[in-house]
């Protein structure tokens, strides 16, 4: 569009600067789609008016991302990615850099709060069916962000170069060593050495401060673009686009994102900052959950700590990894795969699908008897995270929102949440035979929730959805 064809920008209200400001915005707008972006993503992005508590966590996740980037930049100014200096440089930041302790605690606390916000944001998706058509791609972008976040947290956790940093990284990199044939070489390639060392620290630093954040930012952009393309879901799970104003074409049950949700989310950020600051200023270690005691001992490649546990946000998956013993593969996975293959073959009439399922099941069974249980632990851990990608296709309920779903969904979701917490708790603790059994039961429930979803979500007795949002 040629510059002259665009309307001049005018700002409402009175004041001596309005004229100058309008002039400046007009000048920019004729050279850059400023007002288009402003309208399509904020002032004329029509969001459902009935967002509740759970809808704060999207904008809060974005806020924490910015907080992590800004505090991270300042930390980088004084941190030394060098095995001989890393541990002391963190203490240097804590003691001698002006406000260094504050920046560092914001960053370490921010890491945990990032996961808290993202988990609650994902749970919101589960509650209201936010991943259902047409929001599948939006959900996939979100899951990719979650994977990136896990990578970012993992790389970053090595940097303080304490005992937990070191041995945590050692354990996770060794997981890659479990992959048949290429595993051991792959693990060496990732570390750049035979053990976690200075070379590993340097490359993890590069991944943590530039590579992963770049991908993360791009994905967050894609996530927001996809959201603004399809429009937000809401606690009723009914599309606001179904009831539009005849003249303007604006959904009747919507409000413009700006100013309505910008002021509401500002309030959310303010409350978040209170909770966040209580941790930062009064309990930055959070009882050993955010900063582990063992990580105040500098990394020592010759001293394995008696108890290695990842930070709390990885512990549910870590529990699944540890629960996969030989007995679990034999007595749970083997009958599980047989039963699941039979179930699919029984309920899908398509011959190609039946054949494929039979072949995959046969391959898995051969694998169960020939590969180490550790391999299957790694596989299950990977599946436990990536299974979320499939939710849009696993959920076959006629309604989206938990408000109109039946008792089966409510019980299943509650059971899943409890299981997630139990697995998370078990992952922070050491192993006993009782705890292993508990983790195995938890693992079974975790996967049954997802794998049987196509059946139980369809069986459930749902209530009819309303025509329009209820405004509650």
């Amino acid at each position: 569009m040629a510059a002259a064809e665009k309307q001049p920008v005018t700002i409402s209200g009175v004041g001596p600067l309005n004229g100058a400001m309008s002039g400046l915005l007009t000048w920019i707008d004729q050279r850059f789609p400023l007002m288009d972006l402003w309208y399509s993503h904020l002032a004329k992005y029509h969001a459902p008016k009935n967002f509740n508590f759970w809808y704060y966590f999207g904008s809060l996740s974005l806020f924490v991302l910015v907080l992590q980037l800004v505090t991270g930049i300042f930390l980088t100014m004084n941190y030394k990615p060098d095995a001989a200096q890393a541990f002391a440089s963190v203490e240097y930041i804590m003691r001698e850099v002006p406000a260094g302790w504050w920046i560092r605690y914001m960053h370490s606390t921010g890491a945990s709060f990032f996961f808290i916000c993202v988990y609650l944001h994902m749970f919101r998706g589960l509650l209201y069916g936010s991943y259902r058509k047409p929001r599948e791609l939006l959900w996939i972008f979100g899951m990719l962000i979650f994977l990136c976040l896990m990578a970012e947290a993992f790389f970053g956790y090595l940097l303080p170069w304490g005992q937990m940093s070191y041995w945590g990284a050692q354990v996770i990199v060794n997981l890659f060593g479990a992959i048949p044939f290429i595993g051991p070489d792959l693990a060496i390639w990732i570390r750049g050495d035979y053990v976690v060392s200075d070379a590993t620290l340097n490359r993890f630093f590069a991944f943590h401060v530039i590579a992963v954040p770049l991908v993360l930012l791009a994905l967050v952009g894609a996530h927001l673009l996809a959201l603004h393309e399809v429009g937000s879901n809401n606690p009723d799970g009914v599309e606001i686009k179904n009831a539009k104003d005849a003249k303007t074409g604006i959904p009747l049950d919507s409000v413009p994102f700006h100013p309505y949700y910008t002021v509401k989310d500002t309030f959310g950020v303010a409350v978040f900052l209170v909770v966040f600051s209580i941790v930062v200023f009064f309990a930055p270690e959070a009882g050993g959950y955010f900063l582990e005691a063992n990580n105040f001992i500098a990394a020592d490649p010759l001293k394995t700590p008696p108890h290695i546990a990842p930070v709390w946000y990885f512990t549910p998956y870590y529990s699944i990894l540890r629960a996969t013993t030989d007995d679990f593969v034999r007595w749970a996975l083997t009958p599980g795969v047989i039963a699941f293959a039979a179930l699919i073959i029984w309920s899908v009439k398509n011959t190609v699908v039946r054949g494929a399922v039979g072949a995959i099941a046969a391959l898995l069974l051969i694998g169960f008897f020939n590969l180490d249980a550790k391999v299957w632990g790694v596989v299950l851990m990977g599946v436990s995270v990536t299974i979320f990608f499939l939710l849009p296709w696993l959920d076959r309920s006629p309604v989206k929102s938990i408000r109109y779903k039946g008792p089966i969904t409510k019980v299943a979701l509650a059971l899943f949440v409890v299981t997630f917490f139990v697995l998370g708790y078990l992952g922070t603790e050491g192993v006993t035979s009782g705890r292993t059994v508990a983790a195995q039961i938890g693992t079974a429930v975790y996967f049954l929730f997802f794998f049987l979803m196509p059946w139980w979500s369809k069986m459930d007795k749902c209530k009819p959805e309303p025509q329009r949002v209820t405004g509650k």
Partner: protein
Amino acid sequence: MRVLLLLLALAAPLAFAEEESVRLDAAPIDPRDVASLQAGARTFVNYCLNCHSAGVMRYSKLLEIGLTEQQIKENLLFTADKVGELMNVAMSRKDAKEWLGTVPPDLSVIARARGADWLYTYLRSFYRDRESATGWNNMVYEHVAMPHVLWTLSGQQVQVERKFKNMEQAEASARQLKNAWKVDELTPEQAGKDEERFILKTIRTETPGSLSQLEYDVLVRDLVNFMTWMSEPNQLERKQYGYLVLLVLLVLVVLAYLLYKEFWKDVH
């Protein structure tokens, strides 16, 4: 690679193979007690800093616990020339390994790794042990490489055992004790005929030192207080800022809430 994997696989169950540990005494520390911190600094520099460094701690930081530069220079500056220097030790890592068998760990942030209660109990739980290389052992940290450096103050302790038929009796008896204790449990086969399976272990002073037990406890309290302060010298400042920040944020919450309600009052 294989060895590492094996080590890791073995490490997890090991955490629960250890015998029952000593219950830790609560360290009665107070980071606001400047006199205690100063006394602790003196003990730390005189007894600990010969072998252990505090490599991220500057002598000048001691100004914050009320010492003057003159006092630091005259009384505490043994291993450095200037108050701006770090609390390092003269001994090289190689020498330390040769002389002591292991490099004594840096103590800058040890209180955050171990906890004040652990340090407080540990430093009051050494006892004589003929079988160990240093002649000393510890109730909290068995076969610790460090000898009991404070023994001229605390005197010499020995370990004593009493056998009991059940855990309740052993624990009831243990509660009368001032010193660290633990109860080891034998299998019925090990216990033999008399069935006394529960062995209460504690320590008793055999030769008194230059301090009474109470005075020694106070000395260790001050030392642990100092080490806890040293592990995060900004901890008091951090909390003070915390109250200020929360006050400002609460105002922000109220304003943001009013703004939100004002904008939303017409939405039904």
